[in-house]
């Protein structure tokens, strides 16, 4: 009998270090599926961030590189300029990309660097046990916002796609989530589009994925998915913010 749903070749068969209900495993599996389907394993180079996903190279069987906190877009730039024919992607969390690495992501987009950024937004610093992230929602409780994020003290959740969409160098900017099979399929299509943007040398692409962190949200997995659909998606509306293929 032929298996019709199997482990992608690019996904390494090993126990996961991610917490129960975490979204990283889903996203990394999607990346592995796309690499297999596009047959680009031998020419893809990935960047792992500081944060929960630093060990992404334990799961993806491709050439990979760590980067200092916030710096994956710069490291990716350095790699891509040496190997313009290779496919280079950075995988980043919200603290990495939208706090300590804000300058790097904006200027990498502004240079129109031909790389793909996969931005996993779970509104919290997971690896350090759940502090406020730049994308933490107003009133959301974290270790460093024990009474909830206050706009007066902590400012507002940063909308990265909206910011990047007004930068001339951006070519494909989209936000998606992984709360249902339908959304996971949609996410895969958007990731494919990101890789296609790069392969066709159209320039900078970023796909933001709203992803659950049940452990540090102090919620069950099911509650986490509902939180994304009802709360997070209100602050961070899903959709395509910039697309080189559309006339707008």
């Amino acid at each position, binding site marked *: 009998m032929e298996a019709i749903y199997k482990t992608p070749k690019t996904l390494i068969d090993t126990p996961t270090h991610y917490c129960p209900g975490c979204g990283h495993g889903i996203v990394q599996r999607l990346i592995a599926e796309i690499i297999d389907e596009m047959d680009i*394993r*031998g*020419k*893809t*180079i990935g960047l*792992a961030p500081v944060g929960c996903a*630093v*060990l992404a*190279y334990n799961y993806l*069987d*491709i*050439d*990979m*590189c*760590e*980067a*200092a906190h*916030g*710096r994956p877009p*710069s*490291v*990716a*730039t*350095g*790699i*891509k*300029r*040496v*190997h313009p024919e*290779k496919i280079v992607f950075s995988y980043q969390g919200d603290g990495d990309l939208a706090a300590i690495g804000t*300058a*790097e992501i*904006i*200027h990498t987009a502004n*240079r129109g660097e031909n790389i793909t950024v996969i931005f996993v937004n779970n509104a919290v610093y997971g690896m350090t046990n759940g502090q406020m992230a730049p994308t933490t929602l107003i009133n959301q409780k974290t270790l460093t916002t024990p009474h909830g994020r206050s706009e007066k003290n902590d400012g507002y959740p940063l909308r990265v796609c909206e910011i990047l969409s007004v930068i001339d160098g951006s070519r494909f900017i989209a936000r998606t989530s992984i709360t249902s099979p339908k959304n996971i399929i949609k996410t895969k299509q958007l990731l494919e589009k990101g890789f296609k943007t790069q392969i066709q040398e159209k320039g900078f692409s970023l796909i933001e994925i709203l992803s659950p962190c049940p452990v540090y949200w102090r919620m069950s997995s099911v509650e986490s998915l509902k939180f994304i659909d009802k709360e997070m998606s209100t602050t961070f509306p899903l959709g395509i913010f910039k697309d080189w293929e559309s006339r707008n």
Partner: protein
Amino acid sequence: MTSTEKNKKYLLTGNEACAEAAIQAGCRFYYGYPITPQNEILTHMAIRMPQVGGTFIQVESELAAINMVYGSAAAGARTMTSSSGPGISLKQEGISYLAGSELPCVIVNIQRGGPGLGDISPSQADYFQAVKGGGHGDYHTIVLAPGSVQETADLVFDAFDLADCYRNPVMILSDAQLGQMMEPVVFNKKCKPNLYKKDWALTGADGRKRNIIKSFYPVKGELEKFNAKLQKKYRQIKAEEVRYEEINIENADIVIVAYGTCARICKEFLKKGQSLNVKVGLIRPITLWPFPADIIQKVSERVQAILTVEMSAGQMVEDVRLSVSGRCPVHFYGRTGGGIPTPKEILKKISEIVSVREKVTCTT
């Protein structure tokens, strides 16, 4: 300048010679941010890199520059960045990562006065930062200190070879004086970018096992093992790569230790200062790390005193004292904040050392 011919003399600033030597040495990826007194490096790279099919990016920050260097080094290319004090401080996190990931690259520091914004005049006050690590963790960069425009060019070639040989960042520690002044320079060193096979580099895992570039070792014991490997490499560098110049040290009563601009001034002093009753020699470290400790130890066994001259409040003098270990008195003369020692000041200091020594001799 559109190209260089072998053995032809060019009149260039130290900064231009540094940039051109990097190109001649096969560097095709340069990332930089404007800061005085090293701006001529960026300007030269902006003109020359497109001519040789290379990449020049004026970056948004020193952090971006050093991390692009990290990326290009990981991808297997010869790559360089340059800056001065404040910018080099910003790069330190990246330099620690480069050392921790064993990535070869060249970093140029055209030193200016500090601390803080300081000023733009010559200084040697970044010595500690350069030779003791600078960033976090137990690591070393190889540090080369040129004493002329020609030597700046020559050491840039060597820096790329050393970086590739040891998979380690190499720093050129120069200063505003050497960077800004013009001297004749010949580019006659060989470009050897393929001297060492980079089978560890990220090129896409086509038909081979994947490569991973990292400095994260979360499993107990792994990091200690990795550090032991780094220390073994550093011991090998210490054993094989020490470089210095010596002048008149055989019969010297007093030996001066100075590098870079200060060594040039001390050479002037040696030429003029022979009216003294003491014989003075000079040791000029060319590698600041690894430090030429053995030769300094050797001379300390027979000279009456050692004098260290620096454009700092006294940094290299600590390594000199460690090398001497009390075998002879170690004196220091330094100027800070853009002050440059003059041969006259050095003569005065030597006279002081001699008169103190004579007094001591008389009373005993």
